[in-house]
């Protein structure tokens, strides 16, 4: 009896998988988003709603993340970014922060295993953010994961930890200024600058030419990925919470009211359909900006 039940579940699973593959085939007639970003909001509310133990919501949220990644990579989305931990989240209670760090450590070890999703789909993992703010073991694990997956080239997963967009922009501004400063100093020391710094520096126009939009963009933590096509934030909150502010200038915002652990194929499908509907208009906007 037990075996028959298992077999039925297996057949049902295969059918669902086949159906999903068919739907992806049909959808891929239209434009496929290159980059999807997720704000995984609602884990704690899910824990409260289902009356679970502390931290269970985050664990279920992690398996929801794995299914969403599977849908993305099966469908052909090359870049996926997830907002795992904001710099502002350090303000939470030390117990919660510690349990999140432990969860992250555990999951980083998991994704490095043979059968994990990362190896199955050839995913390069990048940790974006101010990694110096993380504790030593987490930072080392993150660097190990980045090194281990550096050769993968089919897809990219950016995990934003210790990240806020304002911090990212500030860091990029700092790096750009330092880079230009070094350039000027180099010019001067080699004599080619004609002592421009000591004479009072460049004219305003020339200064304008020194720092450009592209200079700032190349120093962003997220420089390895193109701008997102869709940002999905669950739990019905309609705000960006300091995530990808710079990169979301012309991006479609999909804000379903389900909590993150409840997200499924239906929401993914809906996001893609809506994206395809407005894709042509957004593409034109982007080319003109």
């Amino acid at each position: 009896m037990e075996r028959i039940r298992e077999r039925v579940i297996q057949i049902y699973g295969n059918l669902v998988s086949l159906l999903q593959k068919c739907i992806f085939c049909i959808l891929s007639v239209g434009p496929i988003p290159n980059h999807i970003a997720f704000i995984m909001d609602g884990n704690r509310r899910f824990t409260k709603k289902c009356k679970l133990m502390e931290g269970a919501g985050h664990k279920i949220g992690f398996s929801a993340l794995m299914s969403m990644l599977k849908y993305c990579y099966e469908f052909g989305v090359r870049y996926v970014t997830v907002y795992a931990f904001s710099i502002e989240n350090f303000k939470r209670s030390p117990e919660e922060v510690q349990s999140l760090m432990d969860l992250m450590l555990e999951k980083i070890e998991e994704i490095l295993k043979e059968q994990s999703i990362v190896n199955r789909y050839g995913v390069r993992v990048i940790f974006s953010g101010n990694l110096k703010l993380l504790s030593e073991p987490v930072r080392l694990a993150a660097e190990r994961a980045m090194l281990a997956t550096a050769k993968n080239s089919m897809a990219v997963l950016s995990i934003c930890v210790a990240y806020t967009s304002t911090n990212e922009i500030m860091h990029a501004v700092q790096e750009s200024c330092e880079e230009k400063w070094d350039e000027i100093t180099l010019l001067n020391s080699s004599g080619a600058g004609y002592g421009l710094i000591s004479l009072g520096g460049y004219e305003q126009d020339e200064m304008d030419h020194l720092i450009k939009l592209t200079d700032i963009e190349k120093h962003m933590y997220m420089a390895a990925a193109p701008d997102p096509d869709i940002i999905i934030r669950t739990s019905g909150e309609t705000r960006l919470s300091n995530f990808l502010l710079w990169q979301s200038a012309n991006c479609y915002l999909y804000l379903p009211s389900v909590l993150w652990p409840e997200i499924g194929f239906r929401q993914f499908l809906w996001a893609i359909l809506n994206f395809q509907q407005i894709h042509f208009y957004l593409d034109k906007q982007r080319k003109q900006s």
Partner: protein
Amino acid sequence: MLSLRFAIPTANTLTPPKTKPKPGLVVQTAWNQTDLFPSLPKRYDYKLQAATTDLSVEGDIPAEEVVELPAELRRELMPKHVAVIMDGNGRWARQRGLATSAGHEAGVKALRELIELCCQWGIQVLTVFAFSYENWIRPRVEVDFLMSLFERALKSEVESFSRGGIRISVIGDSTKLPTSLQKLINEVEETTKHNSRLQLIVAVSYSGKYDVVQACRSIAEKAKDGQIQLDDINESLIEQELETNCTEHPYPDLLIRTSGELRVSNFLLWQLAYTELFFAQELWPDFRKDEFVDALSSYQQRQRRYGGRH
């Protein structure tokens, strides 16, 4: 090619439709001087006079009166800074078979009403996205019309703004604007700079990314002059250099975007870090008091945590 087709003038008046208008509805506009901005009566039901070439104001913003808030709103939860992306003028005009210019004129009226409501309800800063840096690629005729609309609106409103205690600031790359408009902007900013009831920030030729780039350049300039060290660069330094440094509350609490589009479109990127977003389905000229009340009451029900746990 877009042509500025002004309808034949008759003495007709428009009632703003609450629901979507039926297709094929053609509306005549009146071109004689009319009472353009009547002060709002108690009951929300008023006649909208159509655009004229003279946008002079006969109804004033009431100065310093204590107005009762609608029942759903609470004064202590009002946002300090509201930002608005005024999207949908073109579509509104097309739905009524009018020229795009009529849509923009109707948009100005809706804005006027919003400014009055903000004054009455204690909102301190209102930022509006009038013209994006990306909008320069629109047809020349439309761009020229918009520039002349800004000039006319500014000229006609400066008096009533002064009386109503409204301070105007303009942000964006003003070098691309016509010189007459640039001069007018400087004058208006100077005239109204001591007003304190409401600060109206108009973003013209503005791009959020450009704002950050120019902040970066001025920081680099300061570093070059030795005023700051590169190590001193932090988030509040950048915040001080952004164009929104003209106000005490540079971060909007609420962003409203009309016409149902679900994106930010390069407006105030840095400043929107923790802003509550509200996407309204109505087109901008149809965004009136009721819709604004909906947006505010949605805002007042939200729990803002800024990354922490409440």
